[in-house]
């Protein structure tokens, strides 16, 4: 299949909705076709495949055997199926300005945006009606390499009302504007942002002695963890704090799990179900495996392992991505158990970063 044909096939599937049937044969056929395309057009990925003995993509007979690229490798190579001059956008992993950051190169944003509209619309907004979206993150023009900011930008543009707004600008956020707007809203809203931004909001509300009650039907979506930019709260503490401070039922607070290297994101369908769940729903055009770190074999249901995602919307890069996240399969999705800690030094050989820093 050509790239256009692949893009079109995935686009059609995404348009059928995030809650559509999983359709295993359809996924298998598209995944293998996409793998063949990426093997041919993504030179670094082809090298990796050849290293594991796959010099001919036809040797791979099921999607589970498609070699996954660890997220850290996105720091090393430009994993793209198109020449650099066709690059439209680069999303980068968060990190300091000095450390090397992972990059996802995109020549089109169509599938990325289609995927986010489908899942954000389904699991955060709960339907086709537009909603006012209040964003606790910088806008895309101020963070052009942030996939999260782009996601919120598209959500506001395509799914939000005209009153949707970003509350993080320049070097900080605007608590007066946000708290003022939250106190005055008279229709349901979606408050979305990074987990650490929510912590700052909770701290600010507490400092002001404020407790709000958002209109019925309002909801919150947090994502991205804390990244050392606020005090760290457990999920219970964060969601409990949001519920209490904003007058939201617990099932109206949704955690999203995503990463720069993937075009699709994962949400807890708490709003959809009407009760709290910690299980992330996997869209039909994505598969997630929980594998043993040593053997890459699937872990039994409920047992912890490393998450590997296969995202058909990643047509321009690589569809199979191995994370450093721990999770377990549960129900029809997966649960996040945390991130693997940094590799500990159990010997006395000098650490690579220490050596390279001195060179």
């Amino acid at each position, binding site marked *: 299949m050509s790239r256009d044909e692949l893009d079109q096939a995935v686009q059609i599937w995404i348009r059928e909705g995030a809650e559509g049937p999983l359709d295993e044969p359809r996924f298998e056929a598209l995944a293998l076709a996409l793998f063949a395309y990426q093997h041919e057009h993504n030179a670094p990925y082809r090298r990796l495949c050849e290293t594991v003995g796959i010099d001919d993509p036809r040797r791979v007979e099921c999607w589970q055997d498609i070699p996954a690229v660890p997220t850290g490798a996105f720091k090393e*190579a430009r994993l793209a199926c198109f020449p650099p001059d066709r690059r439209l956008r680069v999303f980068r992993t968060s990190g300091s300005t000095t450390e090397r950051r992972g990059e996802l190169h995109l020549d089109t944003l169509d599938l990325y945006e289609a995927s986010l509209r489908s899942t954000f619309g389904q699991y955060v907004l709960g339907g086709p009606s537009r909603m006012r979206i209040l964003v606790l993150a910088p806008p895309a023009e101020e963070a052009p390499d942030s996939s999260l900011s782009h996601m919120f930008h598209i959500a506001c543009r395509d799914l939000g009302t005209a009153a949707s707004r970003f509350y993080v600008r320049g070097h900080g956020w605007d608590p007066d504007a946000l708290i003022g707007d939250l106190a005055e809203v008279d229709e349901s809203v979606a408050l979305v942002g990074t987990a650490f931004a929510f912590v700052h909001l909770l701290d600010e509300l507490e400092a002001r002695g404020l407790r709000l009650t958002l209109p019925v039907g309002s909801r919150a979506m947090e994502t991205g963890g804390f990244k050392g930019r606020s005090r760290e709260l457990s999920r219970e503490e964060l969601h409990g704090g949001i519920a209490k401070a904003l007058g939201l039922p617990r099932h109206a607070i949704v955690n999203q799990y995503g990463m720069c290297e993937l075009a699709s994101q994962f949400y807890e369908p708490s709003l959809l179900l009407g009760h709290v769940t910690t299980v992330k729903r996997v869209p039909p055009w994505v598969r997630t495996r929980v594998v043993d770190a*040593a053997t890459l074999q699937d872990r039994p249901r409920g047992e912890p392992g490393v998450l590997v995602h296969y995202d058909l919307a990643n047509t321009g890069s690589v569809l199979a991505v*191995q994370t450093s996240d721990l999770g377990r399969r549960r129900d029809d999705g997966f649960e996040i158990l945390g991130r*693997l*800690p940094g590799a500990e030094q159990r*010997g006395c*050989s000098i650490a690579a970063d220490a050596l390279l820093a001195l060179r």
Partner: protein
Amino acid sequence: MNTPSSLTDLREAAGRLDPDRVGSALASGLDLWRAADSPWLARLARAHPVYSAAVLERGVRMGVQAWSAQALRQLATDAARRGGPAPGLTAVWLAGSIPTASFHALLLPLLAGSAVYGRPSSHDPASARLFTASLRAVDPGVADALEVGRDDTLLDQADALVAYGSNETIESLRGRAPAGCLFVGYGHKLSAAAVGPAADLESAATAVALDAALFDGRGCLSPAYVFVAQDPQGRADRFAEHLADALGALTETLPRGALSATEQVALRERWAREALREGARVLSPVPRTDWAVLLAPAGTWPEPGLLRFVPVLPVRDLDELGTCCAQLHPHLSSLAHVGWEAGADELEKIVRRGGGARCCAPGRLQAPPLDWRQDEREPLPLLLRKPRTTA
């Protein structure tokens, strides 16, 4: 928790000993580890959290092989002739997970005549404890001068502090050492192997594989890089293939210890990063991570090897080997070399350019002599009485 009285006991026990008795006890204690079917090795295998039993047995046997009664006596005699009085109590801050490194670190101050308090690393609580127990089995009087525990307050009461660890740890401990306390710090290092144009590639690869497999490539004596003379062209490729074969064979006889999930993922990530790189070649038993050989493109510097992931770097000649070693300065510890048409002096000079002091044959990296100049220091720096020795 050590009370002042138990510290006094330690000092008094050391004061009652003469160097001959300490040397004899250490030699007999080490004999227990060298013995066929040593129960001490079996105990270590049961208690050690990092390595397989086979690696521990082979690595420890090889490590202590040359630490004979004669070598111990010689070192003690040299020290007595050249050094001053030993510190009353030496605290030894151990690091890493290599048993023989712990043995060496504990026996040196004992041999110098000091009482010793050893603080084991969190990654290896077993080796120091079992070494002490083996010494007690042969001479309780000598063992009374050695105690192992995790009482950090000892730092304030020791006359000397010998610290092993990362640079951060060394600096932190240096700052904590009380005024007047002699401080000796040994930071983390790495070693390398160099295969010259006259070397037989297959036997060199077999020996280097053993160096990498022992202690799973975690130690500062493990080959972090293997430099191979690339003349004629393709020689480094052939060496890499032999090394892959040898590492594969050792998977059966010297299996790697269990890795944490974090280590597994980091290793897989490392593997992928290298495989993606243009011009690089990675040989490994995918999907497993038991070992890997990276043939790096000429002129590139990959990250150092670890956990049996061994980078092979082609070099043109001895000059380029020297340049490469110099770039490792001051981190190079030891260089295993074979097949270079150069004198021993020339290779020692090359090692010194990297900050190291030890040359040996491939397959012998994990067996330093008792009196080796770790970090280019005298083997018993405690006796030199130079307060605040720099790391």
